């Protein structure tokens, strides 16, 4: 079964339909997603601002990481659960949405950025913990994270305005390929 087949099977589940059509359920899930955005992305920005040396310069970096991380994780869990539910309510349209696809790729890149930071410059934190302006690699991780989250917010918001929806044809071939649209053979 193709991935699209799996997504279509999800769409056929009664709870998926119910959430999509609910009067309050769907808006509440979306509101929670936005609320968690303040918590998770907001606190990620706080850490990024410290890593770039833009502000909170007197706070040791390890202190920001240690004391903010539990709250970021809490926000991230709420974000993922509400995000999965939003996908669950509208599976096929989301799966075939270019903005959704780019968002997933950017989320993976953001994860790689964290991994590179943790396994690289953060291992030597003792040597730069209290530096008002952290070393270049740490600043890079901070700026990269800021840029990535701005783009992720962009893609997230645009999912709702998908100008490249498979139902809106004709679209350039490249768009339909990227979105994974299944097009019926056009009449000769």
């Amino acid at each position, binding site marked *: 079964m193709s991935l699209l087949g799996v997504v279509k099977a999800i769409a056929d589940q009664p709870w998926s339909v119910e959430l999509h059509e609910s009067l309050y359920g769907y808006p509440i899930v979306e509101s929670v997603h936005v609320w968690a955005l*303040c918590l998770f992305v907001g606190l990620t*920005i706080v850490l990024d601002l410290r890593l770039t040396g833009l502000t909170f310069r007197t706070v040791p970096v390890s*202190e*920001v990481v240690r004391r903010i991380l539990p709250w970021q994780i809490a926000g991230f869990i709420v974000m993922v659960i509400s995000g999965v539910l939003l996908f669950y309510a509208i599976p096929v349209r989301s799966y075939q949405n270019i903005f959704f696809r780019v968002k997933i790729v950017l989320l993976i890149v953001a994860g790689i950025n964290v991994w590179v930071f943790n396994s690289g410059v953060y291992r030597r934190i003792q040597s730069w913990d209290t530096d008002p302006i952290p070393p270049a690699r740490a600043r890079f991780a901070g700026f990269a994270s800021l840029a990535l989250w*701005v783009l992720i917010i962009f893609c997230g918001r*645009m999912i709702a305005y998908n100008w490249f929806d498979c139902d809106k044809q004709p679209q350039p071939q490249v768009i339909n390929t990227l979105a994974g649209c299944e097009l019926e053979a056009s009449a000769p």
Partner: protein
Amino acid sequence: MNAVAEVLWHFAKWSEATSLGRVIRNSEYAFPMIEFVHLVALAVIGGAVLVVDMRLLGLGLKKTPVAQLAKDAQPYVTGSLIVMLMTGIALYTSEATKCYASVAFWIKMVSLLLAMIFTYTVKRTIAARDLENKVVGVLSILLWFGVAWGGRWIGFGG
């Protein structure tokens, strides 16, 4: 219709007729793009407000004095608030009469007014005096989350 409601209604009609409102309404891309900037500013203000509120509650960056944290966060709170107000006004002009009829919009406006007054008077004073005050922290979080919640529900026609 009472006098205040009438003024607000006329203001909404006037806002919608401005060239800004018309340009945004007639563009396919303007509204989503402004919303995107509004959301980025929301994330920034969320972090900058929360980090201080959490500190007031005795959570988060406990080793840093409240006053220092508040001073560092201040430009980001004010900066993102300015962006939010500008983009928010632009969004409003494009659909002012819809907003007029929206309960969520008025909940948001009242919360926003209270949140701004509270932030720049009570919270600012308490933080500057380096006091760890839990009530101030809780009130600030509640007011700002009321603003965010109300904002999202305008889009649902609430």
